[in-house]
């Protein structure tokens, strides 16, 4: 059994760990509020963008010659996967959930004999993927220096993707991110962005005929790259809200576990202290008796 002194030290160390996790939880809670606000504020833009694209793609006259970003290259041999994770750890299953989702997608692809290319956004994803898929990673982007998700960063990512698409380096592009549902639930998502999947949703459809200026094709050519930035930005916002949520609940758990551990150790400490006292008493009494 550990000595009294050891136990005392352990209790102290668990207590200070608990202090840290508690502080991290507070910080995450504060950041979560902001990230959630940002995610909510960013929604109208991406929704409107989606609507416009939907209306446009319906109105397009010549489907054969539609921009490639919309219709795809006509092949599906090379897949580009953009795995978006965080730059920091200690956020529970946040990163590993995305990685898990991505990995199962990767193995399905390789089962079908497709070629795979990976871009990682965020250093944690890169760390986890490079062991197994290191040769597949063609780019690693990290925004360690930017505090919040911002549109400028999203544009950087989308520029890289579009450039590669123009060079015909891939046929299909999918992004992986965590969708924020609530503090304890984040749903890993795989979303195909090239070619664009237009959800056929009757609600969003409009009966109106739009006037286009300039014509549909030209607007689409301009709009599609923007839409990719928007989608990536949306993913980044969702991701940052999810990250804070995941961190908050992970730290909450850690704090609670530390509390339990302190309780257990305290009982053990008291017990062994009592045992020592009893032992001493017995020694004294039996010493007195023998006299």
């Amino acid at each position, binding site marked *: 059994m550990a000595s009294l002194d050891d136990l005392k030290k352990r209790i102290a160390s668990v207590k200070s760990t608990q202090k840290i996790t508690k502080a991290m939880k507070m910080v995450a809670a504060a950041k979560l509020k902001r990230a959630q606000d*940002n995610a909510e504020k960013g929604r109208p*833009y991406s929704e409107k963008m989606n609507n416009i694209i939907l209306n*446009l793609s319906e109105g397009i006259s010549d489907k054969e010659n539609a921009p490639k970003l919309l219709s795809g290259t006509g092949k599906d041999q090379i897949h580009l996967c953009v795995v978006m994770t965080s730059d920091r750890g200690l956020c529970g299953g946040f990163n590993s959930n995305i990685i898990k989702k991505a990995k199962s997608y990767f193995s399905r692809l390789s089962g079908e004999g497709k070629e795979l290319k990976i871009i990682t956004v965020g250093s944690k994803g890169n760390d986890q993927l490079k062991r197994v898929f290191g040769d597949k990673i063609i780019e690693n982007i990290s925004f360690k220096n930017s505090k919040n998700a911002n549109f400028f960063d999203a544009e950087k990512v989308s520029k890289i993707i579009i450039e590669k698409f123009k060079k015909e380096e891939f046929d299909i592009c999918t992004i992986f991110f965590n969708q924020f549902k609530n503090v304890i639930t984040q749903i890993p998502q795989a979303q195909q962005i090239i070619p664009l999947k237009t959800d056929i949703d009757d609600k969003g459809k409009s009966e*109106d005929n739009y006037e286009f200026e300039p014509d549909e094709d030209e607007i689409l050519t301009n709009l599609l790259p923007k839409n990719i930035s*928007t989608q990536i930005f949306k993913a980044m916002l969702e991701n940052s809200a999810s990250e804070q949520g995941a961190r908050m609940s992970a730290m909450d758990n850690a704090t609670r576990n530390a509390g339990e551990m302190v309780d257990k150790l305290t009982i053990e400490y008291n017990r062994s202290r009592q045992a020592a006292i009893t032992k001493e008493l017995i020694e004294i009494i039996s010493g007195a008796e023998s006299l």
Partner: protein
Amino acid sequence: MSEEFKLEVVNPEKSFLSKDDVTEVVVPAFEGEMGILKDHISIISFLKPGIIKIYSKLGEEKYYVEDGIIEFKNNNLSILTSSIFDIKDMEKSKIDEMLRAAEEETAKDNISDQAKYLIDQKIEVLRTIN
């Protein structure tokens, strides 16, 4: 009958501006300035660098935009843009800086005609504000 319609300006980060009492909006559409009044036909267009003028009861407001898309439908005007600034809030030093960056850009010779056209537009607009 009222001649007012709804306007919403959103940028990727947030809803920038929302008004439901505008009477006229003039936007710098790609093929020339376009004034939108109530009951305009549904239209989608995109913007080039320029000034958005919003007229309402309160008077005139001016915003500088670099790019964007507009959609008008059922008397709802949505302007989606990633770069919009209230002209009142634009400081001279900032405008100068933007001008300088744009001038550097246009001096490069590897840019496409369309990009050059857009940048030239930007310079022109910035000069008028200045």
